[in-house]
């Protein structure tokens, strides 16, 4: 056997994340689908909204997080979908890397994917709803990042579970959405308060809840992931 140096968990995860992002960069199918979905969603909500009945400040946080949740699912579905063609997943499972590295690499790539969609969707919401993101921009970006970590942690696990089923497109949202609630709820609450001009200190408890769920979801999903791959 050729002289080799085993990869660490972090190095293997980065390798897989880079591979996934390179594939997405070449094809761009899932990214464009998610961005178009997000923008169309924002436009539809905008025209369905009655400004005399609901204030922008009340509507925008909900719109934002509904859009992120469903646009994110498009990317999460693709995450293990690219491994099914020509059984590329066997190449990953046969390689001498920890199974957890596959999960972490996929989750990292999904984080970049959903983050990139959010980077387009947040300014679009600001534009359409004339929202004052500027003053609390950094805090909102931090909340979006924390919430996205939670969403992709759960979504990546369920993507691996759903991908081998005939109803993957249906099963992934059915499995994921209930687990998204504890992440989306504090994120939406914190976003609403910041958009209403409340100080960051007032949303600290929501941020703590987000951090707690992020840690719990990342650890639990990483530990559960190897069992989803067993045949």
């Amino acid at each position: 056997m050729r002289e080799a140096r085993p990869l660490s968990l972090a190095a293997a995860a980065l390798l897989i994340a880079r591979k996934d992002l390179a594939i997405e960069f070449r094809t761009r199918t899932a990214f464009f689908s998610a961005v178009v979905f997000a923008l169309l969603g924002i436009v539809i909500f905008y025209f369905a909204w009655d400004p005399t009945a609901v204030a922008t400040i009340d509507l925008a946080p909900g719109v934002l997080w509904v859009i992120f949740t469903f646009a994110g699912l498009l990317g999460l579905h693709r995450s293990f979908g690219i491994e099914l063609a020509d059984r590329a997943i066997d190449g990953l499972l046969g390689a001498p890397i920890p199974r957890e590295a596959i999960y972490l690499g996929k989750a990292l790539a999904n984080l970049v994917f959903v983050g990139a969609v959010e980077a387009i969707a947040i300014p679009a919401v600001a534009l359409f709803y004339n929202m004052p993101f500027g003053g609390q921009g950094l805090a909102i970006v931090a909340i979006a990042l924390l919430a996205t970590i939670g969403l992709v942690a759960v979504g990546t696990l369920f993507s691996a579970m759903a991908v081998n089923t005939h109803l993957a497109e249906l099963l992934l949202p059915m499995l994921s959405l209930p687990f998204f609630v504890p992440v989306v709820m504090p994120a939406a609450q914190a976003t609403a308060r910041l958009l209403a001009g409340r100080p960051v200190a007032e949303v600290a408890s929501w941020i703590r809840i987000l951090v707690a769920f992020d840690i719990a979801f990342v650890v639990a999903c990483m530990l559960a992931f190897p069992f989803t791959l067993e045949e």
Partner: protein
Amino acid sequence: MPEADRALRLAVEARDLVRSFAGRRAVDGVSFALAGGECLAVFGPNGAGKTTLLRMLAGLLKPTAGSASIGGVSLPGGPEVRAAVGLISHASMLYAALTARENVELAARMYGVRESRRAALAALERMRVADRAETPVRALSRGLQQRVSVARAMVHEPDVVLLDEPFTGLDAAGAAALSDVLVELRSHGAALVLVTHNIDEGLSLATHAAIMQSGRFVRVEEREGLDAASYAASYRELVS
């Protein structure tokens, strides 16, 4: 090779391997042992359980019963066992959006091969497909994809090579390149398990031959002394 020496150098061993799917035994009590430098050719009709057997040896499927080991370590084992195995299957295991070189280099890096790019290009060269190294896999013909797939499986120079119909889709040049690679790997002490329908191709590389039917090895023997024509005739008789 003296039996005592051979036992010490066992590269692959299967003991009463069983794998069931929904109550049906796809592999039903298969046992064999191979030392480094030996090649077992497994012949059998579709649905005989050959692919399931290889997937268990590759650590991709858990046996329902029985056990198997690679280099003395029980499967499924850890990364050290997987590092010793190379698998060529029906599917190419390649990413269509990446180039041939990127696919093989990715495998080399996952196996921790030093100078992964150079190793990837050398593997593509051995499979005589280096001139298409920078072509996306999706733009390659099925035969060229198969060559890249072989390069991907061999880039870390495995001690145990599991091959599932590796000659399928290869033209004469590709088949010759694969044969050369397999002969070279064997000469360096690698053990091969070769699943094929083609008796001539299988016997040309094998030190041992087995016929698999309904999940069982119904005939196992050493290659030496076997006549390919009469073996093919008895195979047809067995599986018909």
